[in-house]
């Protein structure tokens, strides 16, 4: 017992500089970004601005957590933005007008809708061996179409106050979306690090064949991760509708790109099997902080797109550099 304890501590402290850089380099990059932005603009570190940033990143954070699960198995989910829109519209429609339902029920239906679409993704990918890129590309189109059909292409407004609280409310000064993101992150990290299912996610991404031979029901794991991604997209849709106080059928366009970018910046390998959830959260924060900081500096959003692209490439290059031999 003592022996394992000592070994644990030593194992934790015993980093080569390279490993240290690989595991924690992203945190330094993030801190550096904050230092630079706050020295360029004094408003950056103000309480209101910080709250503003974290509120903005909550949506991408939820999507990116689901995306991390998918990418860890070696897959990809391009349909998160469309599923977000569908869930957002569906849940909004339930808390408006005459047929107003209890908030909690509307939220659950929204999450459920996302989960079902995610399950379909996973089922098609696992059962019929369709490439994830293709299956979720198709779902991206289908879910967007469903959204348009359901809403007739019109925004759904006039939402109940209770529902709007999910997006705009605060608890002890912290915005509700941030609290939701925090809970989902803690739960998500716990599942990945501490549970059997989490191990299976890494094992499938690390080597699918060996995972199958090792007795893992690979198809179930795959279906589960896409369902999780769909579920969190659904939740993100609910939160977004509540924040903008309307179900917008065109919401979430190109959101999958930011989610994937956050995962990649966070150091998760696109071939699967390697990566951490907290890295993804830092990735989400880097993207959020960067766009906020550049906004404050009056940099045009066109130019911001270029910067974001450069950061993605830099992150990947850094990763492949430290991971080599």
């Amino acid at each position, binding site marked *: 017992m003592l022996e394992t304890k000592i070994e644990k501590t030593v194992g934790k402290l015993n980093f080569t500089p390279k490993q240290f850089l690989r595991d924690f380099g992203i945190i330094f990059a993030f801190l550096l970004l904050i230092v630079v932005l706050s020295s360029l603009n004094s408003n950056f570190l103000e309480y209101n601005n910080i709250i503003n940033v974290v509120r903005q990143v909550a949506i991408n954070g939820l999507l990116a957590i689901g995306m991390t699960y998918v990418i860890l198995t070696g897959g990809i989910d391009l349909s998160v933005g469309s599923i977000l829109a569908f869930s957002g519209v569906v849940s909004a429609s339930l808390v408006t007008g005459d047929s107003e339902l209890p908030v909690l029920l509307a939220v659950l239906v929204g999450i459920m809708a996302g989960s079902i679409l995610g399950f379909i993704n996973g089922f098609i990918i696992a059962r019929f061996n369709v490439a994830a890129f293709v299956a979720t590309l198709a779902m991206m189109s289908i879910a967007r179409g469903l959204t348009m059909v359901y809403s007739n292409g019109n925004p759904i407004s006039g939402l109940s106050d209770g529902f709007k609280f999910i997006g705009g409310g605060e608890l002890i000064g912290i915005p509700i979306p941030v609290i939701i993101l925090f809970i989902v992150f803690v739960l998500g990290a716990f599942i990945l690090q501490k549970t059997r299912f989490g191990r299976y996610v890494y*094992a499938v991404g690390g080597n699918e064949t060996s995972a199958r031979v090792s007795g893992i029901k690979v198809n179930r794991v795959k279906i589960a991760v896409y369902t999780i991604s769909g579920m969190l997209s659904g939740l993100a849709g609910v939160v977004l509708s509540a924040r903008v106080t309307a179900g917008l059928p065109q919401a979430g366009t190109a959101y999958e790109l930011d989610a994937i970018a956050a995962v990649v910046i966070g150091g998760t390998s696109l071939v699967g099997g390697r990566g951490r959830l907290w890295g993804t959260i830092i990735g989400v924060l880097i993207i959020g902080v960067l766009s906020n900081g550049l906004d404050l500096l009056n940099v045009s959003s066109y130019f911001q797109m270029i910067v974001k692209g450069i950061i993605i490439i830099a992150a990947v290059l850094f990763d492949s550099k430290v991971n080599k031999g």
Partner: protein
Amino acid sequence: MSEFLELKGIAKSFGDVQVLNDVNVRFNKGEVHALMGENGAGKSTMMKILTGIHMPTSGEIFLKGESLKIKNPREALSKGISMIHQELSSIKDLSIAENIFLGREPVKYGFIDYKEMFKKTEEVLNSIGVALNPKTKIRDLKVSDMQMVEICKAISYDAEIIIMDEPTSAITDREVEKLFGVIRDLKDNGKSIIYISHKMKEIYDICDVITVLRDGDIVATKPTTEVSNNELISMMVGRELEDVFPDKNNVVGEPILSIKNFSKQSMFNDINFEVRKGEILGIAGLMGAGRTEVVESIFGLHKLDEGEIQVNNKTIQINGPWDAIGKGIALVTEDRKEQGLALCRSVKENISISSLASIDKYGVLDRSIENEKVNDYIKALRIKLHSKNQEAGQLSGGNQQKIVLAKWLMTSPSILILDEPTRGIDIGAKSEIYKLMVEFANKGFAIIMISSELPEILGMSDRVLVFSNGEKTGELTREEANQEKIMEYATANLR
């Protein structure tokens, strides 16, 4: 013999790990030079330095007396050093010709001159007596033919020094003969061959000089005729090995697993056999005889056309590996990198992955039990590592194989199936794995071992089944079994 390629004081370290210390060796013209040593002795690193994949930390390489820096693989090729890798590296969806001329396709008016390419490929193939169509895609070849294509590729560079890393690991005895013919021709033409193999017989058949590496040092370089087999082994492991195979004292009991009428189209036909408690059952045969497919089917990796599995006289249904594991069956697969390990995950995770159900509560893992169990197996199997949190891919082949074995032992199986359990691992690790097998059988459990190495089959098996072309063609007791009989049965169904 004139001196050709010389390594002087070559050393290499990765971080603070010293892999080669002060290596001095000479490879001569017209010589087949064996390079031997246990896994992790530094052979691969040495070859990677010669082929420009790694740069040495210090030391110099001389080619025909001139100092030489090899910065990348292309440069190595241009200096006439070419290598046949142990892992087949052909691109599967390109043709034989396209693979052989990859990166140096003959060009006419800016387009690839396929006519010329096919013609040249045919010449190379003919030169080593391989009858293949240059237009065939690699994907459609047998593994042994893929290996021959790799060899053709190396030869086609007009290389003066050809490095062969375990070139016979995937080819049949007859093809080995062919390969040796090619090697003799190359030698007569003044080429220098560096031959890496764990197979003693081959070394004595084909090599002129042997260099033995151990822990990054050269132990000795001697003419083959002056080293005995035992001497060679003790040079490699640094101690006298009484015998590679342990004394067998396992007692054979009741049947535990019976296979009835196993059939699957184009794989195997009407296979029947049983294995008993405490027994080591060897399955011999040539590559492609259907042995692997049969055991994979027992394990639920293929759907049978027909057939029945009985464990302890009860018929059981196996729909996938998870069912087989539940019935106490474990399968150590043939290819540890493809089927056995997630190389980018830790040793610990790889060992425990199939046993997580027994160390969790409501899906949450109990890490202290996991660590304890994993440590036990690391100790019991003497796996050499810095930390169990190290990535599996960083360990040597023998240690990786032990991780796979540890994974399966941890599931507490009563039937252990081993498919080529010692392929590509060094003699020390081999001997340890044999000991573990006997220990396992001694506990009253059963082992099925597929092996293409006859000494292993003869040394370990209580009973030997021989497969040929998808059918069981022979069954021999330990006393009856010998090389000649096994080969006779193994080729029985070949035309």
